């Protein structure tokens, strides 16, 4: 009979170490012995759960249409951008395709343009005629120095979501509000101390004074920005200063705005204030409506939406906030196949309709907008067809120019906004200081390695 040359009795130190060694050998075989799946493998990294769920349902269809192609979806959640940064720095381990969030893309554009870790997709987009089929201003957050490093997942137009019942109770018909001056007049009527205790019980609007989100949306609406198309710092322009003066006046002069409850608009505290009737309106991108529906379903039927008040009659009634792109990394070994996956997940009409169904996100592909779903009444908004409003506003989206210094700039912009609203600095001082800091930062870098 066959016997092993060693047994548990003669093994050094006894049974325990022998079992550990056997387990070690088995797990090593399991880890390194796993063969790659046959066929062509593509890796696709995602950071958002809703996107991951959408692609999980859609990718098997692509794989069935393309036998031999395996698309591996990996959802890293919030840590994905750091992992991608590490993979690009080490020039090893990056996926073929990846989704990047709008506030994170700047850091990937640092350095010489040919060192950026993403493939320039402009040649493919232009040769296949996709540029005309998508909202062209939506490429600006993903473009730098003439190259397009990503394709927009969304448009994220912004509307003014308001409590029709409470505004009406204050004698205001919000559908008649067309400009910010109209809104201030309406807001003064609606911001009220209901119980006479000397404290305001309901505010016309909730705005975030901790971060750039609301201020920057207002600035974009006017056609302003932090950087211009050439990369110059323009955050101390008269337009930017006037916008911050207007923003601070909503809190301090007109007293119709309340700071966001909690740390951001999606904070449970903010939702609680909404349910208490303390907040009468909010600047809401399409994705935020999706969050409201899932987090405060009990408010169904209480909200209505109009385009944002314009800065002047017949002015732009929307802006944009947030966003995601899909990019192809330079480590991708089969760009043609990756491009096919990209087109399937981003340009396929049934998929985009399905995306709207689950997330309320309006797609950038214009040909998808005629799908009936976008005109269906929205129960959450008392039957108002919200999709139709978003689509009506979408062609007028302002550009948002991207820059490698956006992360540093946004961090300092948060401080500047807070300083202005809390009256530690005037808006002019806050933005002038900010612009000087960012210009000094850029000048220091350029002094070290020359203009890139």
């Amino acid at each position, binding site marked *: 009979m066959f016997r092993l040359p060693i047994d548990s009795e003669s093994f050094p130190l006894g049974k325990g170490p022998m079992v550990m060694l056997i387990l070690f050998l088995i797990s090593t075989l399991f880890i390194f012995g796993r063969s790659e799946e046959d066929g062509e493998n593509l890796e696709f990294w995602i950071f958002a759960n809703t996107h991951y769920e959408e692609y999980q349902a859609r990718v098997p269809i692509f794989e069935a249409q393309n036998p031999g192609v395996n698309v591996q979806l990996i959802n890293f959640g919030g840590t994905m951008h750091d992992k991608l*940064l590490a993979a690009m720095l080490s*020039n090893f381990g990056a996926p073929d395709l990846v989704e990047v969030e709008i506030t*994170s893309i700047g*850091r990937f554009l*640092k*350095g*010489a343009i040919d*060192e950026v870790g993403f493939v320039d997709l402009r040649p493919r987009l232009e040769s296949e005629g996709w540029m005309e089929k998508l909202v062209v201003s939506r490429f600006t957050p993903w473009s730098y120095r003439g190259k397009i490093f990503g394709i927009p997942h969304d448009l994220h137009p912004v509307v003014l979501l308001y409590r029709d019942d409470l505004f009406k109770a204050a004698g205001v018909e919000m559908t008649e509000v067309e400009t910010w001056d109209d809104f201030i007049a309406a807001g003064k009527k609606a911001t009220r101390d209901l119980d006479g205790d000397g404290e305001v019980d309901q505010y016309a609007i909730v705005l975030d004074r901790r971060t750039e989100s609301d201020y920057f949306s207002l600035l974009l609406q006017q056609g302003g920005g932090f950087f211009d198309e050439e990369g110059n710092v323009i955050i101390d322009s008269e337009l930017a200063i006037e916008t911050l003066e207007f923003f601070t006046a909503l809190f301090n002069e007109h007293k119709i705005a309340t700071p966001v409850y909690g740390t951001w608009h999606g904070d449970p505290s903010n939702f609680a204030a909404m349910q208490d009737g303390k907040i009468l309106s909010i600047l809401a991108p399409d994705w935020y409506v999706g969050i409201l529906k899932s987090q405060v379903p009990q408010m169904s039927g209480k909200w209505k939406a109009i385009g944002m008040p314009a800065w002047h009659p017949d002015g732009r009634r929307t802006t944009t906030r947030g966003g995601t792109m899909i990019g192809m990394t330079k480590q991708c070994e089969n760009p043609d196949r990756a491009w096919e996956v990209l087109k399937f997940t981003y340009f396929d009409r049934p998929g985009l309709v399905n995306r709207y169904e689950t997330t309320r996100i309006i797609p950038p592909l214009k040909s998808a907008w005629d799908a009936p779903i976008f005109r269906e009444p929205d129960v959450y908004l008392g039957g108002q067809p919200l999709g139709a409003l978003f689509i009506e506003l979408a062609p007028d989206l302002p550009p948002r120019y991207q820059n490698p210094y956006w*992360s540093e700039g946004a961090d300092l912009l948060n401080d500047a906004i807070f300083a202005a609203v809390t009256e530690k600095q005037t808006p002019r001082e806050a933005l002038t200081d900010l612009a000087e800091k960012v210009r000094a930062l850029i000048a220091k*870098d350029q002094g070290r390695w020359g203009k890139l």
Partner: protein
Amino acid sequence: MRKKQTTYRFWNQQQKIAPYLFIAPFYLLFVIFMGYPLISSLLMSLYEMRGFQSRIFVGIGNFTDLFRDPIFWKSLRNTAYFAVGTLTLQLPIALLLAILLNSKFVKGKNFLRLAFFAPVLVAGVFVAIIFNLVYDQRAGLVNHEFVLFGKEIGWLNEEKYVMPAVILTGVWQWAGFNMIYFLAGLQGIRQELYEAAAVDGANWWQAFIHVTLPSLRPVIAFVFVVSMIGSLQLFDLPFILTNGGEPADAGSTIVMYLYKNGFQFMRLGYAATIGWVLFFIIAVISIVQLKLLGIFRDE
């Protein structure tokens, strides 16, 4: 005869080599995971990244920039605020809890020990998420239940309340953990010392000052140094609780600023510089603490 000689030589060699082979895995892992990154980060602090592929030598430029950086100083102040809050609030509470649990008058000691220790088993990320709700301006436990404040305090919205909120959260999470060290120290104090003090007419307070505290000195020194190091490395709690240090960097700490520079701003050289400055701060404070607590003193 020849074969026997060869075997002997092999055995002799093996005896010489074996110890090195036994300790080799540690040194190998140390060089790969500690030695190389340490030297690499020190070198990195003398460079600045230029995109993903190349870097520029800047000498001590990152260090001079850092000492002129107001956000670094603000982060340092916040970190020091937390460290002082930890030492003056958390450790006395931990010691008080340990004394209570060590007394014979308290019932259900095992349950209480577990209850006070349990928060440390919760990951920092979850603690931050839970306390985000606790400090909630409208519906949070603190504002909603503690009516003595009489108004909705924006714990995480107003600059002056941010660090106190972080410190109180730290107390909840770590006081029970430090209590265990103090408890072990208290249980190691010989009963005869208290009996001798009682014979000399010492009351409870005098026994505490002249017996308990001196006997606990090594434990106190250990807890002080470890808590100080932990405080200076504070990151996850304020990062999640204050959404990255907002408002106006009121919740920013040194390690958070390091993270932002390294991963959000892609300034790896500057981040490495912050790391090394933090290392020196920790080293100096730890040595001073140990010196003041008399750990280097000959008994």
